[in-house]
Every structure is written in structure tokens, then in C-alpha cells.
């Protein structure tokens, strides 16, 4: 049986009011379920606009969105929103609850989930993001990374099929960023849902199963990290840089060192260099 894409975008065009250029220009793509997907592109490339079409926050002027095989329409949009959660960029703009636990419960209250069930889910979600000990605290007093973990818990508690992280790490310090990225890796291993991370951090994208590069509202290329990062010229042309391991590999190969001719992540590159070390 053929697998149904969790999200399918067909020929979608969207132009912001008064904008000269469309933010999305006849774009089509398919995302498969239960993967970690990265959407990369420079600021203003259209990547965040694209994500906002997935749950109808933005309604395209033409084209169609399918969520798990279902066409997104005025009738289906509410159902889809229940199955797709978003963590936004700014950790300070997404809190409504007086305590961490209240905040996580908010989305479920809105969806009319019974209280007993809610309590179970709040605890499970907060434990999952390692913030259960902070459940009675005010969200405002947490660090940036902790705030984003709570926001993620709020999304997890809804048991969505898709979690979108819209540049959720870009305002965090290095420690906060690695907390979120570690958590994403664990979630992918544990859960049966799709993670879509919208990012311009190539090191974060390198962890994904599948990467989509967006520019000028078009899909420029897509692939698994090893195919994707092999095309460094393409990345440069669209305002991104390749991961450090690829910069090093590229330069070593150019200077005549006999390394693999494909993308290697840091571990693989260190291993290859080791086998070439004089003392081996």
C-alpha cells in the first residue's frame, strides 16, 4: 500500500496584501509521516509562510493543502488544527497560564478534554520535556530554553500528529538551543508523529531525515542530509552555508586528500581522518 503523505502542498500561491512578489509561488511538495523534516531558507524566503498554510493560518489564493490525505477546507480546518501544534520563535509571546501546568492545560481546556484526562496528559507532557519540577512556577521566570520546553509540552499534551517548530531555537542561547534539539531527537525516537522544524541553522537541519530548501517562494531542492549537503554551491546561492564537517571535507578533498566523495557528518569525517592518521 502506498503511504499517504502527512502534508501535501499542491501548486500553492500566496501573496501578502500589498506585496509585489508572491511569498509562495506555485509550490508543490510532499512530507511523509513520522519523519523529522527540516524546512530551511534565509529570512524572507517564504519558509514560515509555507508552514502557516498547513493549518489554514494563511489561506492560499490558489492551490490545495492536504493533511493526512484530507483536503484543507473551511469545514476541515478545525479538525486539522487539533492535530497540528506549533511552537513559535519568541518564547515570551506564547504564554497565557499563571503557572507552567496551567499553561500546558490551556489548549486542552479549549478542546473540552475532561479534567481527569487533562491532569494525566499535563504530567506526561511536562515529564517528557523534563519540566515537571517547575509545574507550579510562573512561566515568565523561566529561562528561554525552559520556556520553549513548556511551549512544546503544551503542544505534546494535545497528542498531535504533526509538531511544527517555527525557528523555535533561534532566540535561545547555545545551552537553550541544545536542550531543545536534544529533546527533538528524543521525541523522534519515542513518538509516532512528524516533526517539522523551520530553521536556518544547518547543524539543526543536518539531524533531520529530509530537508526542504525554500527560496523566493519556490522549492529549490529536497533530500536526505547526505544528498542535500553535497550541493554546497546550491546552498550558497540561496543564502545558507554547509555544515562545518562539509566545509572541512570539501577543502581536504580539494587539496588532494583521499576522502569519501560524499557528505560526511562530524563522526564519519573524524573516523575517516583517523584511518588516514600517520600513527594508525
Amino acid at each position: 500500500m502506498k503511504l499517504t503523505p502527512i502534508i501535501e502542498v499542491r501548486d500553492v500561491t500566496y501573496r501578502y496584501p500589498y506585496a509585489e512578489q508572491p511569498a509562495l509561488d506555485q509550490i508543490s511538495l510532499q512530507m511523509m509521516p513520522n519523519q523529522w523534516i527540516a524546512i530551511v531558507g534565509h529570512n524572507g524566503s517564504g519558509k514560515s509562510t509555507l508552514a502557516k498554510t498547513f493549518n489554514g493560518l494563511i489561506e492560499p489564493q490558489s492551490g490545495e493543502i492536504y493533511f493526512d490525505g484530507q483536503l484543507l477546507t473551511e469545514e476541515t480546518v478545525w479538525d486539522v488544527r487539533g492535530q497540528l501544534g506549533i511552537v513559535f520563535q519568541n518564547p515570551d509571546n506564547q504564554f497565557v497560564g499563571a503557572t507552567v501546568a496551567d499553561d500546558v492545560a490551556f489548549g486542552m481546556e479549549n478542546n473540552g478534554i475532561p479534567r481527569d484526562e487533562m491532569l494525566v496528559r499535563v504530567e506526561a507532557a511536562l515529564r517528557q520535556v523534563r519540566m515537571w519540577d517547575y509545574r507550579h512556577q510562573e512561566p515568565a521566570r523561566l529561562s528561554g530554553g525552559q520556556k520553549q520546553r513548556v511551549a512544546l509540552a503544551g503542544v505534546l499534551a494535545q497528542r498531535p500528529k504533526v509538531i511544527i517548530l517555527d525557528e523555535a531555537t533561534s532566540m535561545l542561547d547555545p545551552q537553550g538551543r541544545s536542550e531543545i534539539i536534544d529533546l527533538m531527537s528524543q521525541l523522534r525516537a519515542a513518538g509516532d508523529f512528524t516533526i517539522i522544524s523551520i530553521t536556518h541553522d544547518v547543524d539543526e537541519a543536518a539531524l533531520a531525515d529530509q530537508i526542504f530548501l525554500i527560496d523566493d517562494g519556490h522549492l529549490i531542492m529536497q533530500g536526505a542530509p547526505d544528498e542535500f549537503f553535497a550541493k554546497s554551491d546550491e546552498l550558497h546561492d540561496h543564502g545558507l552555508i554547509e555544515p562545518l564537517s562539509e566545509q572541512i571535507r570539501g577543502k581536504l578533498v580539494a587539496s588532494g586528500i583521499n576522502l569519501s566523495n560524499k557528505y560526511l557528518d562530524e563522526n564519519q569525517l573524524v573516523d575517516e581522518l583517523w584511518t588516514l592518521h600517520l600513527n594508525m
Partner: protein
Amino acid sequence: MDITFEHVDYTYQPNSPLATLGLKDINLTFKSGSYTAIIGQTGSGKSTLLQHLNALIRPSAGRVVIGEQVVTPATKNKELYHLRRRVGLVFQFPESQLFEETVLKDVAFAPKNFGKSEAEANEIARETLRLVGIDEQLEDKMPFDLSGGQMRRVAIAGVLAMQPEVLVLDEPTAGLDPIGREQIMQLFERIHRERGITIILVTHQMDDVVSYADQAVVMAHGEVAKVGTPAEVFADLNWLTAHNLELPSTGRFVQRLQQKGFHFDQMPLTVDELLTAIKPQLKRGAHVG
């Protein structure tokens, strides 16, 4: 204009049960025309230190000497007016402070506030906008109609329009994409070189410290943990890791290679330095042809 910290302490909420020491016995010099990077974990005292640089807060003990102006716990606010023009502070996400109806008005606000005529202020604003790469067509737009990267430049232009001698930058590239980051850092480098402006940069981007700064200051628990050139500060990777600091991007790689038996006399801080250090350690057979 040199800036010197002499035995500076800063206490949050003094004389209360909640009193906490924000800074402890800080001794530092920022020479006129230098480029200093301040690094350290969130909560290490970087921002508190920063706010002393144009006397937004005054030390609880010790003194800060900014040019001829001495700032002590007893200094009156009135005496600090001129200082604020000479030291420009760009906060994190400065675009959130844009407020005027048009881009030009926003940038002209500070010079007008410091006594320039409307025509003079507009002239300065135009010049500054060109300097940060904002075209004439954008001058009459609402700041909020611009892209994130453009808004950031306009906000920076607003500070530069005061024509400060010292520019203090708190994570000026946070949230920007790699190319946008590079452009903003190049802009500061150009202003630093061409106009001799002193730069003090707070950052988590260790590669920027390596590329641009001539002095690096490591803050930890409200104290200066280390001062030196970037090469000196990044020489000991284990020390950095022990202080929970990020490494320059080559650092992680170097640590892994060391575990596999590679040897480095000096910590390579750039990709090219790294390659130069690795190549002689590879087998001859490793070279093609």
C-alpha cells in the same frame, strides 16, 4: 575614549533580603579604538557589565571611568547626559524598539533629541541609512513593513545616528540567517575600521569572536574569569568546556581528533588553520596521485 572598570561591584536589590551580587571586583580596560568581545553563559553578568558602559546603572562600589567622566555610586544622573550620546547601546532584538511612523523619522529621532535641527537630523539619518545598506525608497515606509533583517538595520542606524565614539552591541545578530549575520558583522567591522569606533560586543557566536575581536573577556558568576586575545582565551578547550562555554566551531572537531590521536601545538581557530594542522599528520597514501 578609553573605558576603565576599577574594582566594580554591582548588587541587585541592595539592603534587602533579596540582595544578590551581580558583579564582583571587575577590573577591565577597553582602549579607544579596540574591539572587545564579552562571552559567558546566560546569567554570568554580561548584561549587567554592559549597562555600566553608558552608566544606565551605576556601580555599587568601585568606579567606571568613561573618557573624562568618572562614574561612582554617588554620580548624579544629570552629569551623565553627554555620556549617553558618546556611548551607543544596541540592545538584543533592537527592532522591537522602533516606534516612529517612517524609517527616516525613526533614525532622525536621536540626533534631533540631542539638539540637531530637523534638516540636520534628516541629513544624518539619510547618511546613516546608506551606511547600513537601506535604500532611499524605504525611507518613507513604516518600519514595521520591512523585513526582519531590514528592521534590524534601521534600529542599528538609529543608534549610529547619534554618532557615538563607542558602540556597545548585545547579541546584534541573534535570530538572523547566516548571510544576514555576516552582513551585519561586516558592517560593524567597517565602521570600526573606517571611523575608529570602539566596539564592545556581547555574543554567543565564538566564530565572530575569533574573526573580529582583538580582546576577549570571559564572564562567569559575575566575575572576570579570563581576559586576553581570542587565541589566548580559546587556547585551552578543556577550560572552556569546564566553564560551560561554547567552543569556536573548529573546537568540537579538534577535541574529537585529539581523542583519536591527532596532535595540535596550538588550537586552530579557523577552518584553514585546522587544515594546516591536520595535513602533515595524514599518511602519504592519503594523498591522491
